[in-house]
């Protein structure tokens, strides 16, 4: 397969093709009649997904560096270029985005009835923006994609969202905008530092990375600017307040992409930029204890707040805060297991939370309510829906054999060495997850069947099965046999660790031992 792909030059055009195809797809949508819009969008996103699948085989797992790189000058006097590439970290983010997009399009089939052309054009634009964020290796390009992706999501929430959509849309926009503009200032400061050394400015990722050791006193401030932008996106605990609003008000497709892809941009940003650029600051004792504390607080707080939500969509929204807390913990523990675990959490969360949002959307289309109290005992009426809902919920809880388990287990395993107490507390988050999801499951699909509306619910249609079954298959596969995925990310995770903890091989073990000793009473 890899040879076949190489023979057609796949590695030289694939990233550009992935970025350009959705934008080209916007044109026929704008030309064709409105009722054709969703079909065009579905075909474009399916072709995009099939194209991106080649990455799975073409990617060389033995190398941790960038692959499929393309460099085309853009503003040469500023050292700005169209530089893109994929490594074992972004590979899965790209595949996740291309998979979730056709699923979301299919999930919006009946839900979006107004201004369909606009909706599907924005979805395709969003796809380009998301992929751009994950493949950009030039900070200028990255910033452009990072911001441009805001506009489609802003409109998707604001036009097709729920009753409080205006507030949610502007809150989402402003939160992200504050962080990203400060990040722009930090990028420009670093570019001038690079220019002072090299003689000419450069926005290339590699050049800024090499500058990491020369930042001096400005490093904490620059790190703070980057970290703020990414922490808002993740979202890390006190900065999460935009998330429940945006998730709940967004239409189903918007929630799926927010949870499935956009949140990962935050953790991806830490892995790609914030930590490798400023390893000294990021792993200084003060920052480490702060981030680890906030991550654990996020795990527990997200779970506790999810528990008391009457609206099941809000419950899932808060569960994202909890899950992403695991990812942050794994990133900051900076061991091979924990980083791989964080990546697995990111992927698993993309599958299970997206599926939950889609299933809730299907319930909402039938009943026009998402209140848990409005349901009860529907397992007897809609057995297929209930089966899939249960599997997805169990995957989200982290039941062994399903995808959620692999990531959380690896994070906890890898983090226990450096941060035993924090990891111990975070472990209870898994229990809380079982509490809020199983309790919700019990109240929605078990318990006695009440209400005439519940009695006449229709089970999943063929289209709806096509929406969720691929995700369920993915959950089972990732849960039972995650090895191919872990293999592909291992070299890049090691590469990341070398950047994040220079001299890891020599100093890590004693450091961990000392810290563990210090933590013992």
């Amino acid at each position, binding site marked *: 397969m890899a040879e076949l792909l190489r023979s057609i030059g796949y590695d030289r055009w694939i990233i550009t093709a992935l970025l350009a195809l959705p934008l080209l797809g916007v044109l026929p949508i704008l030309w064709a009649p409105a009722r054709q819009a969703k079909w065009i969008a579905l075909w474009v996103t399916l072709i995009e997904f099939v194209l991106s699948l080649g990455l799975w085989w073409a990617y060389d797992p033995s190398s941790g560096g960038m692959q499929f790189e393309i460099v085309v000058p853009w503003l040469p006097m500023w050292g700005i270029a169209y530089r893109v590439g994929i490594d074992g970290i972004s590979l899965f983010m790209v595949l996740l985005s291309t998979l979730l997009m056709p699923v979301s399009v299919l999930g919006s089939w009946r839900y979006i009835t107004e201004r369909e052309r606009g909706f599907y054009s924005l979805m395709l634009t969003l796809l380009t923006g998301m992929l751009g964020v994950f493949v950009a290796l030039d900070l200028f390009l990255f910033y452009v994609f990072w911001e441009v992706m805001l506009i489609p999501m802003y409109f998707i929430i604001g036009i097709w969202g729920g009753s409080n959509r205006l507030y949610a849309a*502007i809150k989402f926009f402003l939160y992200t*905008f*504050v962080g990203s*503009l400060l990040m722009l200032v930090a990028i420009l*400061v670093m570019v*001038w530092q690079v220019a002072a050394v090299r003689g000419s400015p450069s926005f290339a990722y590699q050049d800024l990375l090499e500058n990491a050791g020369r930042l001096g006193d400005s490093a904490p401030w620059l790190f703070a600017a980057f970290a703020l932008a990414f922490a808002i996106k993740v979202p890390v605990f006190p900065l999460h307040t935009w998330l429940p609003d945006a998730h709940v008000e967004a239409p189903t497709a918007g929630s799926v992409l927010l949870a499935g892809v956009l949140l990962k941009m935050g953790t991806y940003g830490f892995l790609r930029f914030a930590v490798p650029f400023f390893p000294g600051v990021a792993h200084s004792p003060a920052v480490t204890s702060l981030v680890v504390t906030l991550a654990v607080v996020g795990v527990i707080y997200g779970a506790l707040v999810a528990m008391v939500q009457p609206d099941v969509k809000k419950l899932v929204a808060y569960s994202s805060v909890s899950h992403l807390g695991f990812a942050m913990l794994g990133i900051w523990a900076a061991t091979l297991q924990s980083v791989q675990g964080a990546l697995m959490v990111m992927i698993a969360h993309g599958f299970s939370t997206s599926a939950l949002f889609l299933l809730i959307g299907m319930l909402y289309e039938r009943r026009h309510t998402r209140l848990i109290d409005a349901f009860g005992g529907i397992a007897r009426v809609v057995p297929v829906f209930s089966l899939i809902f249960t599997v997805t919920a169990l995957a989200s809880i982290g039941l062994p054999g399903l995808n959620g388990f692999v990531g959380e287990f690896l994070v906890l395993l890898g983090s226990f060495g450096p941060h035993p107490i924090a990891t111990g507390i975070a472990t209870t988050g898994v229990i809380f997850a079982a509490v809020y999801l199983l309790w919700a499951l019990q109240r929605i699909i078990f318990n006695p069947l009440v209400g005439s509306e519940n009695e006449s619910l229709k089970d999943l249609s063929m289209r709806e099965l096509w929406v969720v079954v691929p995700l369920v298959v993915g959950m089972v596969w990732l849960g039972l046999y995650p090895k191919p995925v872990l293999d592909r990310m291992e070299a890049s995770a090691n590469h990341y660790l070398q950047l994040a903890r220079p001299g890891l091989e020599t100093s890590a073990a004693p450091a961990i031992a000392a810290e563990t000793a210090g933590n013992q009473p």
Partner: protein
Amino acid sequence: MNPIDLLTPAGATLALLPELLLTAGALVVLLVMSWRHRTAGDSLLAGWLSLLSLAVAGAGLAYLWVSGATPAGAPAMIALDGFRYVSGALILICAAATVLLSLRYLEREQLLAPEFYVLLLLATVGLLLMPGAQDLMVFFLGLETMSVAVYVLAGYDRRSPQSAEAALKYFLIGAFASAFLLYGIALIYGATGTTNLVAIGAKLSTAPLSLMASLGLGLLLIGLGFKVAAVPFHMWTPDVYEGAPTPVTGFMAAAVKAAGFAGLARILVECFPAAGTQWKPIVLVLSIATMVLGNLVALSQRSLKRMLAYSSIAHAGYLLAAIWPGSQLGYSALMLYLMAYGVTTLASFGLLSALGRDGERDVTLDSIAGLGAARPGIAAALSICLFSLLGFPGTLGFIGKWYILTAVLEQHQAVLAVVLVLTSVVSAGYYLPVIMAMYMKPSRVPLAHTEVGLPPVATWVIALSVLAILVLGVIPISVLDLAGQSAQALLGATGRAIAAP
């Protein structure tokens, strides 16, 4: 290279070719209007003739530019460098766009006096002189020519009390500002014995500024601060921008601001090459105050026109931030931002004039609700303009803001950069609700926007501007080069000035 001796009559005439051609054009239009000033057709004729005059003046400018005219001999009244040409081209383009946007507007608003175009042309002559002036008196002359014409234009809708108020306010404050400026010029003349910028620069480059020269610098900054609407000299702006006919507001925001800032840059560079330590802190404070106040007050506006007026104050703050570094990059950023802001703001006011039916005072967030569904083209164009004003990537506005930030950070001035980005976030708080109202709120009455429409000519102007905003936002190399050349030309002049004995 085409050396022109500015001390001979022929040389001076050649150097002033664009201004002279435009003055002649204005007089021709005035003459034609003495016979034909009754019908809407006459007004249109005046408009097209004015456009022709602007094109001829543009050809004059292009001749000087392409032939590479350079001054031969002693420093004189008018500059012949890239900075003048680029700003001149920008001003002429803004004026031409204003003419085109006014054609049907005047008819709709029953402002059928063709002298409108004559005044616009004369104001443009004044504007052309400002960035080109090599002598404080020429600068002042240009400023006053422009001001007097714009006072009348602001009050052009003589049936509207707001328009009259705008004219009076602008006139009184403008006179006040001119007095400051003139007093500053007098003091600088007293300190140096000359009004020629280069000669002043040569005198002031050696020693620290005397008290008299410092006072002169301060008064100049105050006078120009009024003209470019920097806080705390901005009080006239909202009322004047709101009261004036909308195309005139666009002209004031785009062209007058461009000429004011370009003139300010030239005076600071050529007269005070060594006094950076004195004017930079003042500009820094003015810039921060302008950005903060302009953006915060804009948040609370309901009327779109008034909101854009406050936003133009905020943009003056960003432009002052581009003046602050005093480096080649800073002046490139200034020129780039003037281009970006000029194109965007003209298109915005052009769109606003399409939305107003009973005068644009009434265009509020509520009245544009549902526009996105009823008039998708206008709503999309306005959204793109607003994203450009916000400085969003993919638009020319972002390139401008990025350049200003780069220039500011080159000098390690992180405070100014952070204030700039944080106030930009604030500006999202008033630009986004407009987009939100257009796309995300239903219109309050059915068929609310059936009368909204752009005349064909205005449609072309706005479509072209929006295209420029998007295309140059992605492929900005040409404008970056242009801005860089003009800044280099400006600083090249100082190089000469400092080298001169």
